[in-house]
């Protein structure tokens, strides 16, 4: 089961490297989004509250521009029938989730590095807390956006629908991780943040199990 999901992930990875369906646009999107924010700030000194919020705004919209790929590319090229014939739904969901997880992590690490380099007020005082909340937040984004990608791949108007459907689902997660990022910027310790960390952890677990169970219905026509 795990080797099959990994094989599917490998197929997607090589397909992505060959077609550049998502990567190029995604990288450009990150650069554009960050520079728009930099231009609009100008020489103003902005508060930590705002920087940690904007950080997750960039991540949210980058995720929305790239993560739908996993299912939309299969559906658009008509290869989802082929996938149906070679793998069970659980394998497909695990493989696609793995691909999205890796993509989210690569993308967000780039965003975090650029962000830390370009924004003066983005100073992380509790690095361990930042890393933990960053990892948990990424898992949550990957889990929710994978199942929403599966839903919209079967619908029309895919591109515009994706952020519309994802935002209400990701809203509790984003509100909490913004709070966590702010706490880590202020140098709070783990004790202060345990409530938020627990919320994000629960969100990840609930979304992973929920989407895993519901994927069968989305996938099978």
């Amino acid at each position, binding site marked *: 089961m795990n080797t099959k999901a990994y094989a599917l992930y490998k197929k997607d990875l090589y397909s992505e490297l060959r077609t550049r369906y998502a990567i190029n646009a995604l990288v450009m999107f990150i650069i554009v989004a960050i520079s728009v924010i930099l231009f609009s700030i100008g020489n103003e000194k902005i508060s930590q509250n705002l920087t940690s919020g904007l950080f997750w705004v960039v991540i949210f919209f980058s995720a929305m521009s790239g993560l739908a790929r996993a299912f939309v590319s299969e559906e658009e090229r008509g290869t989802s029938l082929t996938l149906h014939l070679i793998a069970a739904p659980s394998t497909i969901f695990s493989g696609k989730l793995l691909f999205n997880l890796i993509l989210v992590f690569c993308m967000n690490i780039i965003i975090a590095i650029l962000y830390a380099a370009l924004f003066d007020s983005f100073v992380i005082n509790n690095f361990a807390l930042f890393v933990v909340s960053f990892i948990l937040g990424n898992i949550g984004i990957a889990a929710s956006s994978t*199942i*929403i990608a599966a839903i919209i791949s*079967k*619908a*029309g108007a895919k591109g515009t629908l994706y952020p*519309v459907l994802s935002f*209400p689902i990701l809203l*509790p997660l984003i509100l909490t991780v913004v709070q966590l990022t702010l706490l880590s910027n202020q140098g709070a310790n783990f004790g202060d943040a345990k409530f*938020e960390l627990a919320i994000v952890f*629960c969100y990840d677990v609930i979304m992973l199990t929920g989407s895993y169970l519901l994927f069968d219905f989305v996938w099978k026509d």
Partner: protein
Amino acid sequence: MFWKISLFIILAFVSIAGIAFPIVPVPHTWYEFPLIPGLKENAKIIFFHVPTAWLSSIAFLMSTLYSIKYLRKKNLDDDAKSYAAAQLGIIFCILATITGAVWAKFAWGSYWSWDPRQTSIFALLLIYGAWFALRSSIESEEKRATLSAVYSIIAFLTVPFFVFIMPRIMIGLHPGAESIEGGKVVQTASPVVNFKMNGNMLAIFFLSLIGFTILYFWMWTIGYKSILIKEKINKQSIQE
């Protein structure tokens, strides 16, 4: 017929009582409401605002329950029921948002201030909006039913998070709102913390709640039956 007349009487009474009964510092007779410090005449919105907010959540819950039922049985009638519930839900949700915002202008000084419950109802509006956007973009009936059912279940999974995190992140302004600080429940600095209704106010409040709930179920029954009839007519016109 009998219950329709009684529903009319209940709602007529609630409307008259809710608007016309005077608010006095010390109530003497059954038709006088007590004065709540900080709310004054504004308190009367409770008879109309709270039922709409309540019904928008009930409609969301029913829509999700029929979605689950649809996924289990694959009967398109359940999808029609879920759709009818959501249609009413979005209407009540908009009503609750507007009545709340108008009230907030007078009670808090601004139409919108991201109070936890305002944020939650905003999220609910977004979910309803996304749900209808999803439905309108899918042609095939079965696929539309399945995908929207899955989406409403996923959206429903996020509800507990709104309940838990909102009070923590934002300051509660709602009358009777409490905020969780480090796990302890404390009263917030909202203008009205001591929100107490007396007997007759409570009676009218619950009467209003019951009346609106019956009204909702009546509208819902008409709603899904009309969807089923419309589908039947469509099918006949295709066959002929």
